[in-house]
């Protein structure tokens, strides 16, 4: 029984994407990962528009002061179990925006992050493999 559940979870990670002040590079690559060439949907991923439907939270950007409360709220709204993936260098470590008064990040200062995908921006393939590794390890 448990194995069936975990298999269902692994095979159907629905994704909510939150931009917390990124430069668009990573956001575009995330969308690109759903287009025919990379086709994340073959892993059962869906890009959903409401955090209530989501299992995976993809965070891009270094978390600006404006987005900080929203990040927390979105995180709280995702029903358990959930996975957080930081996409891009600036979500993983804040660089190159570190040092700005406006930047509260990186993401792992605020909410627990399960997987980091470094790259600026990472290729869509790297994003895909990041999501899959995160889901595999957390939901197993």
């Amino acid at each position, binding site marked *: 029984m448990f194995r069936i559940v975990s298999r269902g979870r692994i095979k159907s990670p629905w994704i909510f994407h939150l931009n917390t002040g990124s430069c668009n590079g990573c956001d575009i690559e995330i969308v690109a990962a759903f287009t*025919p*060439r990379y086709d994340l949907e073959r892993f059962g991923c869906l890009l959903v528009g409401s955090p209530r439907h989501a299992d995976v939270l993809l965070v891009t950007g270094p978390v600006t002061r404006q987005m900080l409360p929203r990040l927390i709220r979105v995180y709280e709204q995702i029903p358990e179990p959930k996975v957080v993936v930081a996409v891009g260098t600036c979500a993983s470590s804040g660089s190159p925006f570190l040092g700005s008064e406006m930047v509260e990040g990186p993401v*792992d200062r605020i909410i627990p992050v399960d997987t980091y995908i*470094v790259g*600026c921006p990472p*290729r869509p*393939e790297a994003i*895909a493999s990041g999501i899959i590794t995160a889901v595999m390890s957390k939901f197993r």
Partner: protein
Amino acid sequence: MLYETLRSLFRRPVTVEYITKPGRMVPVPERFRGKLTYDRDACIGCMLCVRVCPGGVITSAEERKVAFNISRCILCGQCAEICPKGAIKMSTQFEIVTFDKNGLIVK
């Protein structure tokens, strides 16, 4: 549109089956700026790379060498360009996925 879509129904999809089929990926060109590699022996400790790095990735380490915190690297390739000894190279490894950021420190 109808014609085009119906035709693609019977064609092979254009998806590159990365992950599901090992070894399949969109070809990585040779100029690709991926995770950098550091040749510690070649480094002469001139610290030029530290000065150009926009992300604060590179810090000086003991024995006049440098250390890299790759989780901060924005893969611009400027350090590889400036290094007089070619101690830093950009590899073609594009998949830098990790659970633990500290594992990404290269010395």
